[in-house]
């Protein structure tokens, strides 16, 4: 790290400043998330630290807001709905997105950039416009206020993540491997399952996790398309923030932070696992 060429006091000061600045920005990124974790154990119905909490008095802390989640049928229903919708849309997005990515990664794909741009566009189209369009269209075919409608909407929003991760994975994938497998006597199906799949699986799983997270967090299409039967976790949080601010939301938020940390760690581990494999053909 230390560069022997420049080690004047001025350089040192500069390094300290740049390190301090970097840690401040990191704190800006992470601190807001960490701050709500202790708040969710507040014994009082407030969004801020009480004196008891600051003096670490055990009376200032409680699990009441977590009990609230478990005892409230609306939250339980929301968790169920979110899981069903996220799993279904993840499945659809992964299948459709992986297929398309396999196509897009091939050198003979006509108008590759154009199609790629189209398939990723749900990521950049303002969500209100997409949700408004879906609202009219899904209402006219009877899909509004149904789980299926929201699953389809979330699939569209999840697809770009799968396509992006998969094309990135496949661009490092050597097609000669399949030919090699073929020449060694493997039939195409065996080659697919024994060679292709293990190589692209990590990318596929991280794409799927992205799509899952996208659906699990999505609220605007639910607001436009969903009915009373389609309350999801974000929908509950939305009305909680707007209507009845209680630390229950902080408790849910804390659980979601833990959940997303797990997803993130899973993706990072996949990346590590994947990295040496992807370089295999180049060796």
């Amino acid at each position: 790290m230390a560069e022997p060429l420049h080690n004047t006091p001025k350089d040192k000061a500069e390094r300290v400043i740049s390190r301090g600045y970097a840690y401040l920005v990191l704190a800006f990124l992470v601190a807001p998330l960490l701050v709500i974790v202790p708040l969710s154990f507040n014994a009082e119905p407030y969004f801020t630290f009480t004196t008891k909490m600051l003096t670490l008095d055990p009376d200032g802390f409680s699990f009441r807001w977590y009990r609230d989640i478990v005892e409230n049928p609306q939250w339980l229903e929301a968790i169920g709905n979110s899981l069903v919708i996220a799993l279904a849309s993840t499945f659809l997005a992964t299948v459709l997105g992986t297929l398309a990515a396999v196509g897009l990664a091939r050198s003979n794909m006509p108008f590759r950039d154009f199609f790629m741009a189209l398939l990723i566009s749900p990521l950049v189209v303002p969500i209100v416009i997409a949700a408004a369009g879906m609202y009219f269209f899904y209402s006219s075919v009877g899909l509004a206020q149904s789980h299926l409608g929201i699953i389809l909407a979330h699939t569209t929003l999840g697809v770009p993540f799968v396509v992006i991760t998969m094309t990135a994975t496949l661009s490092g994938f050597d097609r000669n491997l399949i030919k090699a497998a073929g020449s060694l006597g493997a039939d195409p199906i065996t080659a697919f399952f024994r060679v292709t799949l293990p190589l692209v699986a990590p990318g596929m799983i991280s794409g799927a996790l992205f799509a899952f997270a996208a659906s699990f967090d999505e609220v605007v299409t639910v607001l436009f398309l969903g009915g009373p039967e389609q309350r999801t976790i974000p929908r509950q949080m939305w009305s909680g923030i707007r209507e009845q601010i209680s630390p229950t939301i902080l408790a849910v938020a804390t659980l979601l932070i833990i959940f997303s940390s797990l997803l993130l760690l899973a993706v990072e581990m996949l990346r590590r696992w994947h990295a040496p494999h992807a370089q295999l053909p180049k060796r």
Partner: protein
Amino acid sequence: MGRTTGIIIAAAAAIVILAGALLLMLGRGSEKAVNELDKELTDLQLPDADGSTPAVATDAPGAAAALAGQSLVVVSWGGAYTKSQIEAYHKPFTAKTAAKINSIDYNGGIAEIKAQVEAKNVTWDVVDMELADAQRACDEGLLEKIDAGVLPAAPDGTPAVQDFIPNGITPCAVTTIVFSHVVAYDETKFEAKKPSKLADFFDLKTFPGKRGLRKTSPKINLELALRADGVAPEKVYETLATKEGVSRAFKKLDTIKDSVIWWEPGSQPPQLLASGEVTMTTAYNGRIFDAQIGEGKPFKIIWDGQIQELDVLGVVKGTKNLSAALQFVAFATDTQRLADQAQWIAYGPARRSSLPLVGTYHSKPDVDMKVHMPNAPENSTNALQIDFLWWADHQEELNQRWSAWLAK
């Protein structure tokens, strides 16, 4: 690889076809539902005058469980108000008819109803609305007509039409309560001088702090501004009918615009007061009552310049549960139900026959509900009644200016 590709494509095609088939089926399904609805509408009989004989259950053994298996979506304003309705209307209705009631919250207005009716996607059955909105929805053909004959008479036999307060029954709506838009403040925030009149709401110097105002509609806010600006109750709508009058109201609101936190759900104003986000706010009087009496908060209501309005039940046009919805409306607006509701929240019942039955707060027998009612004589010395017909015609015009004013 060729075969693999084939397999993958076949699988994908199967999924797409499956999705397509599902789409089609669902499309058909809704068509079928509409056809059935048409049939139901033509077959419809209204319940008898006493509201107890269900129209659809001619072969049912008794009134109990007459609507078993049916469920109604009843939409209201959430929080303490919905709670009072669940206790007074929903639970006894379910006990009597076995119909399940699904309660949903909204923040007023007719947009959601209109969107449902126009998109032919009606999922709400009964909606609790402000009378002016109900009138507008009725004009637009968004509500079913309700025959006053289906409403039960008072216990002493007085027919419903005479039992209800004036404007209590309109073609599409039956009134449940009289409520009031009031200004409320947190006592602990003003130590020396406490606000006492409507004009104090606009006096940021003497009474510093943020103000809360309802965001959803120019209604109430424009009246409030004019009243605070010195316009007498009987002159308010005359003034608003001119462009200059509307500008005068907006100008008055401009004086506090930068200090306003805008609220939408009725549960928000007491929370804004409790969290200290605002020191004074407009609110529905019942919500402040709930915070004062129910939760023991140090809030005070300024009854001066209160704006009274009627809250009604309406039935959404094209609901699949028309008969059950009408039964619910008739049941919920009978003498006993309206009196029961007044045990839970400080809103005045819309039937004269309910008034003598109004007692004390459900959990605190020492709290006499009558003195907390907006139409109690000592509270309504300087009150304004909302002109619901005026608003039915002018709301949309003023909405445009209101949203532009808010965004700037």
